[in-house]
């Protein structure tokens, strides 16, 4: 019988017996020092690489979130036997406890914002076109540089405008968060793709601030998701083979 691992938690027990894992198997905790690894038994030949398993994995993690601080494991983290699992946990114990401390009582929220990037870029380009004289005959290198420089200025102005918008958005939310990761302009229209780590006590304030932001007018489109486990704020400093690695989520 194999062990399927769902998450590391800040407790050596106390997982509700009612939580069912993959293929309906009961979920339980294997303690290691002051932390626990939440697992369920899995037959060696079980076929679990499907969407249903991924959703079940997430469901278990979310159920654990209600009562514990959780470091979710990557889907399909399977161990042949308990000793192998404990050996891996022993290797990463300090990482796990550091991360558990960092994300203790905190949840992750995702914020995405779309703006009319294409329209804004066109507007900037038009303004530059009106202010620039058409390129006359000149040396080919200088002409090439002029064209490139015009594009560079448009890109720069576009990014500056994005920075200004993001600063306003972040200003609304920043006071309620412990950590954040902001990604600007993943596409021209996706102005901001952000994840915020929010203390449980400040969760309502954070959501209220988001509502205020959303209601403040403008042409932006908003999406909020969460609360989630702190997927994007878990960092393992060492991989299993001792090499340095930064890994999103707990991956043994």
């Amino acid at each position, binding site marked *: 019988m194999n062990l399927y691992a769902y998450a590391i938690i800040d407790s050596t027990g106390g997982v509700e017996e009612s939580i069912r894992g993959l293929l309906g198997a009961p979920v339980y905790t294997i303690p290691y020092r002051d932390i626990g690894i939440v697992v369920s038994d899995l037959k060696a030949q079980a076929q679990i690489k499907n969407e249903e398993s991924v959703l079940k994995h997430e469901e278990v993690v979310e159920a654990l979130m209600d009562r514990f601080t959780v470091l979710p494991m990557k889907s399909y983290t399977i161990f042949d036997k308990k000793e192998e699992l404990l050996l891996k946990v022993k290797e990463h114990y300090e990482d796990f406890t550091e991360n558990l401390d960092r994300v203790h009582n905190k949840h992750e929220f995702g914020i995405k914002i779309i703006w009319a990037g294409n329209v804004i870029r066109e507007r900037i380009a038009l303004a530059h076109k009106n202010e620039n004289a058409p390129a006359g005959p000149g040396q080919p290198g200088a002409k090439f540089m002029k064209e*490139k420089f015009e594009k560079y200025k448009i890109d720069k102005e576009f990014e500056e405008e994005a920075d200004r918008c993001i600063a306003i958005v972040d200003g609304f939310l920043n006071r309620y968060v412990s950590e954040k990761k902001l990604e600007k302009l993943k596409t021209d229209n996706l102005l901001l793709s952000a994840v915020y780590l929010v203390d449980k006590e400040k969760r309502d304030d954070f959501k209220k601030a988001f509502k205020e932001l959303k209601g403040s007018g403008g042409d932006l489109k908003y*999406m909020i998701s969460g609360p989630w486990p702190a997927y994007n704020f878990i960092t393992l400093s060492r991989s299993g083979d001792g090499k340095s690695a930064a890994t999103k989520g707990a991956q043994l």
Partner: protein
Amino acid sequence: MTKKIETDSLEIFAGEMEKVKDALPKKIVANPENVEKGLAKLVLTLIDLIRKLMEKQAMRRVDAGSLTEEEVERVGETLMKLENKMKELKEIFGLKDEELNINLGPLGDLM
């Protein structure tokens, strides 16, 4: 616990996320049939990265006004030739602009 996604524009977000997914770099595939293309993709990605860095640096210097007219002409000609050569090489190996990228795992995309 309530846990959900809230938006008034789910379709628009789904469309935009689809674009992000499509922009993710593909793997460097190396097998006996296309090893040449796989290697070309890797090498051209690195050359293109260096070319873009050079171009950006040149633009910064133009922006700062630190290049003379002669220097602008010389740098421009170099960058233009480099860009044309890259176009030729991409055509030879049947590669598109969006294919010239590498996923660096947790560090994100190269470009």
